[in-house]
């Protein structure tokens, strides 16, 4: 069993909704990213998504775009992120998922990336602009190294593609709850539950639902039909506000405990 499988088995057996957290690595810099990841783990985040900053984040809304700009300005690269994870992996219990656009990975080389991700103790990889049809090579290399390939599903994904994703994905499936870019919203998307139920009909893989989740109510609501909720922009927003403060890690920890309350 991979670490992601164990984590979701535990979430399913204890009945509480899981929480997947997203942060942009290198925002405000990689040193502080190390502290933030430890804080998230201490606060009980179940899966840590580590975003790799990319110059052209076309699937992201303004909050993560700004985080990306800060991370790039601090000199963050995919290679630097992998080095950091390798250093701190031993301190962190939760599974770690790399969340990246395709080009930085292609530039490093798919095989070299897979090797270095294994060495860094990465548990899963999600490449958000690589369609299922083109993910074969990357998936094979990751699978050979015991790393899960996390696939994204959107409300516009057809049932046929859902089935294919269910066959090819592992670890968990990441469902986008709404059309549009990343970003916190006041209310959950109306079709979110239908979306998860559509996935449930074709797959037994755990489902994490993201895009627009920012409150404990959202997390509890999502937990009724999905295995976990993904919180990204609203957490990145906390980091943006507290980035230079000495209380950064405390604030992050409090925020995650509040979300899980």
């Amino acid at each position, binding site marked *: 069993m991979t670490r992601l499988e164990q984590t979701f088995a535990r979430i399913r057996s204890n009945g509480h909704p899981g929480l997947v957290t997203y942060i942009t690595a290198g925002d405000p810099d990689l040193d502080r990213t190390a502290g933030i990841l430890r804080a998230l783990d201490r606060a009980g985040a179940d899966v840590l998504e580590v975003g790799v900053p*990319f*110059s*052209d*984040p*076309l*699937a992201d*809304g303004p909050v993560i*775009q700004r985080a990306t*700009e800060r991370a*790039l300005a601090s000199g963050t*690269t*995919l*290679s630097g992120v992998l080095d950091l994870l390798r250093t701190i992996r031993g301190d962190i219990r939760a599974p770690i998922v790399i969340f990246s656009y*395709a*080009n*930085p*990975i*292609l*530039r*490093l080389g798919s095989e070299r990336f897979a090797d270095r991700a294994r060495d860094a103790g990465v548990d899963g990889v999600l490449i*958000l*602009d690589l*369609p*299922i049809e083109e993910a074969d090579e990357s998936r094979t290399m990751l699978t050979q190294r015991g790393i899960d390939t996390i*696939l*994204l*599903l*959107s*409300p*516009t*994904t*057809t049932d046929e*593609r859902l089935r294919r994703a269910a066959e090819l994905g592992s670890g968990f499936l990441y469902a*986008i709850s709404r*059309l*549009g*870019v990343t970003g916190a919203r006041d209310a959950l998307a109306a079709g979110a539950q239908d979306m998860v139920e559509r996935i449930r009909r074709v797959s037994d893989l755990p489902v994490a639902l993201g895009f627009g989740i920012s409150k404990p109510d959202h997390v509890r609501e999502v937990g009724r039909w999905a295995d976990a909720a993904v919180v990204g922009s609203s957490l990145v927003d906390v980091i943006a506000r507290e980035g230079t403060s000495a209380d950064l890690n405390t604030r992050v920890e409090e925020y995650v405990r509040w979300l899980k309350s």
Partner: protein
Amino acid sequence: MPETLVAPIEELTAGYYAARDDEAFCDELDGLLKHYVGRPTPLYEARNLAGTAGGAGGDVRVFLKREDLTHTGAHKINNALGQALLAKRMGKRRVVAETGAGQHGVATATACALLGLECRVYMGTEDMRRQALNVVRMQLLGATVHGVEAGSKTLKDAINEAMRDWVANVHDTYYLLGSALGPHPYPLMVREFQSVIGRESRAQILEQAGRLPDVVVACVGGGSNAIGIFDAFLDDTSVRLIGVEAGGEKIAPGRHAARFAGGSAGVLQGTRTYVLQDEAGNIELTHSISAGLDYAAVGPEHAWLRELGRTEYAYITDTEALDGFKTLARTEGILPALESSHAIAYTMQLIPTLKPGTIVLVNLSGRGDKDVQTVMDAMK
């Protein structure tokens, strides 16, 4: 390509394949191209330009394909009308587009005004500054122009923002991409809508010169005007096809947009092609005096044709392009767009190396009225 766009792109592909097999659709587009756009555009022999180029100059024949004389002043209208008709056929009521120099934005705003579609154009704020006239033209045509502050504030950033809009509004919105870029079917569809340039040129030069050209020259940003004129000559292996990229200030990171001179294979905005990028895979900033060539990736069909050895690519610097602009104005009484000035300037350099009697066909993709302010500033 993000998963959210996969289904809309499949819908677009099916919609386009159905439209191009539909006689009524093709007839409507042909009618608009003839009576609204003013096609066919003239093929003009520029004897004065050839004469000033030196060397065997006077004995080389240069023909200009006058896309600058289309309605709205650039080749962009060929594609904008085709896709706007397609949007309507697919039942979309709203169109989003990106623009660099503003020519595609103006063409899209024009097509939307004509066909009764709501139009929103994304444009980098740096481009809005240098192409202020085109911003007003789009607004007068009823489009909303949305400034994009991200990144280099140019075309690439406008495409990101247009795609974000499309992702959020796929049900009623059509993304009218202006160059031979992006995911399939865009490179194919844009080439097919622009291939009218090559078809006309080929027939016209056979009539006027009695034979095929030896060389075809066109500027390449995303590469739609170039692929449009090259397309008709791809099987004529005696014809050299040369694309001219923007050399900017010089070939150094951030100072140019010559992808074949300084780029490598990468993925940007749904296209795998030659891209200007750094060691970490981030896209580099670009520079060109011409907003329409100021983009970090080249159309994938250009990359493919180059790999096959069918096309060649060169670059022209800002200074050389300005010389081309001035020379064409003085010798022929034509103000070319700064984008097209790259093709003119390259042709001027090429002529002295050619044998007498050589025929060069140049795509004069747009007119230069929009660039007068930029040229004035550069001449100060």
